[in-house]
C-alpha cells in the first residue's frame, strides 16, 4: 500500500529511525540528569551516554572521540568552524575560499566575515558541479587562512574531491573545513586518511533527530578555534550550553546504524535511483544535473525543459520533492546552485530534486515515474515553449517581451 504523499525529499530531512527514537526516549523521562552534574548518579549516567554517543559518531568517520564537539546542527557547526578558525588565525592572513554551490550556512557565514574585513573568493564549479583543482590552486594566496568546501552537495549530490583539496591545503598550512551534512552514511569518510581539519555533521540527514549536530576538530595537527557560544565552558570551552542527552544519544545511535548498514543500504538505494533515472530520462528533453560518477546514489536532480518548476511541483503533489533546495523553493528565484553550473534560466526553472532514502520502495519509484510521465505531458501540452520547439523554433533567437 502506497502512503501519500510519497516522500522523496530525504536530502531535506529524514525520518528518525524507529530504533533511534526508541533509544532516545528513556533519556527524556527516566534518565534526565544533566551530563555536567558531577555529584550524583543522574549526572554520571547521562555523561556516560553522551560519551558513548560521541564514540559512535567518531567511529563512523574514523576519528578520535575527543575530536567531536556537540552542536545544535550543521549550521552551527559551519558557523563555529568558519568564524572560529578565521578569527583565531586572522593574524596569519584574512583571505578565505569557498565555492558558489555551498550551502547558505557556509555562504552567509562567509558574507559575515567579509563584513568584518576578510576577503573571500567564491570559486565557480565546473559544469558537472565539481571543483576544478587547477582553478582552486590558482585561487590560493599567501594570506589564505581557510578553505571551506562541502563533501556532498545538497542539491545535486556531487562528491567534491575532498582528499585532493585536503592535500593541497595541508601542504600550504591552510585550515580546511568540510561540511559533511549530506555525506554521513552515504560515502565512506576516513578522517585518519583525509587531510581535513574541521568537519560539520548533522543528525537529521542521517535518520537522527533534528536539533543536534557535531563538529570534528582535528587534534593532530591541532586546530584552534575561537568559541562562538560562551557560558559554562562545556565541550572544552568550544561550545557552552547544557548537553541535550536524548538528542546526542539519538545522533550516536543513528550514526552507529549508518556505519553498520551503509554498505547494503547504498547498494539498494543505487538500484532504486537507477530505476528512477531510467524511467524519468525516458521523457523527452530531460537533463540530469551534476556529475553522474562522483555522486551519491541518493540524489537525482533532473531538469525538465519547457515546464516550469513550481507548476510541476503542484502537478505532482502525490510526491514530496523539492525544486532547488528547501531553503530557496519559496522564492521566485531559480536555484543558485544550478545557475552556478551554467544552466540557462529556463532549465533552472524546471529542476526537481528527487532524494531517495532508507524507507523508499520500488513501488514508490514506479508510481513516481508514471506520475511524472503523465504530468510532464500535460504541462507540455500547456506550454507555448514546447509548442515552439516542436515547430522547430530556436528559443534563444526569440525576442521576448520582458515585463
Amino acid at each position, binding site marked *: 500500500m502506497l502512503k501519500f504523499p510519497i516522500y522523496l525529499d530525504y536530502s531535506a530531512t529524514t525520518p528518525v529511525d524507529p530504533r533511534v527514537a526508541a533509544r532516545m526516549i528513556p533519556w527524556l523521562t527516566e534518565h534526565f540528569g544533566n551530563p555536567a552534574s558531577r555529584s550524583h548518579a543522574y549526572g554520571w549516567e547521562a555523561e556516560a551516554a553522551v560519551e558513548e554517543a560521541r564514540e559512535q559518531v567518531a567511529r563512523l568517520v574514523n576519528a578520535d572521540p575527543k575530536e567531536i564537539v556537540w552542536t545544535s546542527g550543521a549550521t552551527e557547526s559551519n558557523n563555529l568552524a568558519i568564524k572560529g578558525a578565521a578569527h583565531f588565525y586572522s593574524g596569519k592572513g584574512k583571505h578565505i575560499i569557498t565555492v558558489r554551490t555551498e550551502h547558505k550556512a557556509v555562504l552567509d557565514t562567509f558574507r559575515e566575515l567579509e563584513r568584518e574585513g576578510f576577503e573571500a573568493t567564491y570559486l565557480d564549479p565546473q559544469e558537472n558541479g565539481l571543483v576544478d583543482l587547477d582553478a582552486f590552486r590558482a585561487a590560493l594566496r599567501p594570506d589564505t587562512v581557510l578553505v571551506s568546501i562541502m563533501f556532498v552537495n545538497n542539491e545535486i549530490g556531487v562528491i567534491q574531491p575532498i582528499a585532493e583539496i585536503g592535500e593541497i591545503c595541508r601542504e600550504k598550512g591552510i585550515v580546511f573545513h568540510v561540511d559533511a551534512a549530506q555525506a554521513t552514511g552515504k560515502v565512506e569518510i576516513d578522517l585518519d586518511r583525509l587531510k581535513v581539519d574541521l568537519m560539520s555533521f548533522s543528525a537529521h540527514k542521517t535518520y537522527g533527530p533534528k536539533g543536534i549536530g557535531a563538529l570534528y576538530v582535528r587534534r593532530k595537527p591541532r586546530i584552534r578555534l575561537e568559541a562562538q557560544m560562551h557560558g559554562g565552558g562545556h565541550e572544552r570551552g568550544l561550545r557552552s550550553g547544557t548537553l541535550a542527552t536524548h538528542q546526542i544519544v539519538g545522533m550516536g545511535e543513528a550514526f552507529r546504524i549508518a556505519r553498520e548498514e551503509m554498505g547494503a543500504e547504498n547498494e539498494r538505494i543505487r538500484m532504486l535511483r537507477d530505476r528512477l533515472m531510467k524511467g524519468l530520462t525516458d521523457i523527452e528533453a530531460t537533463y540530469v544535473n551534476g556529475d553522474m560518477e562522483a555522486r551519491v546514489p541518493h540524489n537525482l536532480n533532473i531538469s525538465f525543459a519547457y515546464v516550469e518548476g513550481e*507548476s510541476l511541483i*503542484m502537478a505532482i503533489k502525490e510526491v514530496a520533492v523539492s525544486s532547488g533546495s528547501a531553503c530557496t523553493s*519559496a522564492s521566485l528565484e531559480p536555484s543558485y546552485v544550478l545557475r552556478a553550473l551554467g544552466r*540557462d534560466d529556463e532549465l533552472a526553472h524546471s529542476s526537481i530534486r528527487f532524494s531517495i532514502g532508507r524507507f523508499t520502495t520500488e513501488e514508490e519509484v514506479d508510481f513516481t515515474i508514471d506520475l511524472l510521465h503523465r504530468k510532464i505531458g500535460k504541462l507540455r501540452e*500547456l506550454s*507555448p515553449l514546447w509548442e515552439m520547439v516542436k515547430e522547430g523554433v530556436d528559443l534563444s533567437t526569440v525576442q521576448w517581451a520582458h*515585463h
Partner: protein
Amino acid sequence: MAYSDKLLDHYENPRNVGSFGKEDDGVGTGMVGAPACGDVMKLQIKVGPDGVIEDAKFKTYGCGSAIASSSLVTEWVKGKTLDQALEIKNTAIAEELALPPVKIHCSILAEDAIKAAVEDYRKKQGTQVAPAADAA
C-alpha cells in the same frame, strides 16, 4: 503556498487550452513574458465580423497562478468586444483567483496578454483594411 479553490480548479482543469492558426484571419495572438522570468503566456482571440471575441485559446509556461490567470481570461474575453476586453484589469483577475501578493505579477501578465492579442488583431486588420480604404 495555500491557493484558492478557484485557482486550483483553473490550474487542474484549464479552460480553452490550445492554439489557432496564427495567420488565420480574425485571430489575434499575444505572447508575453520570457522564459528567464519563469513565465510565458500565449493568448489568442478569434474575432467575429461583428467585432466580438467568439473564441479564445491559451498556452502558458509558468507557475500555477500564471496558468490559472490565463485560463480565466480566456473565459472572460469571450463574448466581449475588443474595447470591453481591454477593460479587464489585473486587479479583477487577482481578486477572482485570490492570488497571493507574490503572484500578482501573473495577473499583470494576463492583462498584458489581452492587450497584446488585441493589438495584434488590430494591426492585422489595419494592414488588410488600409489598401481597401485607399482604393475608395
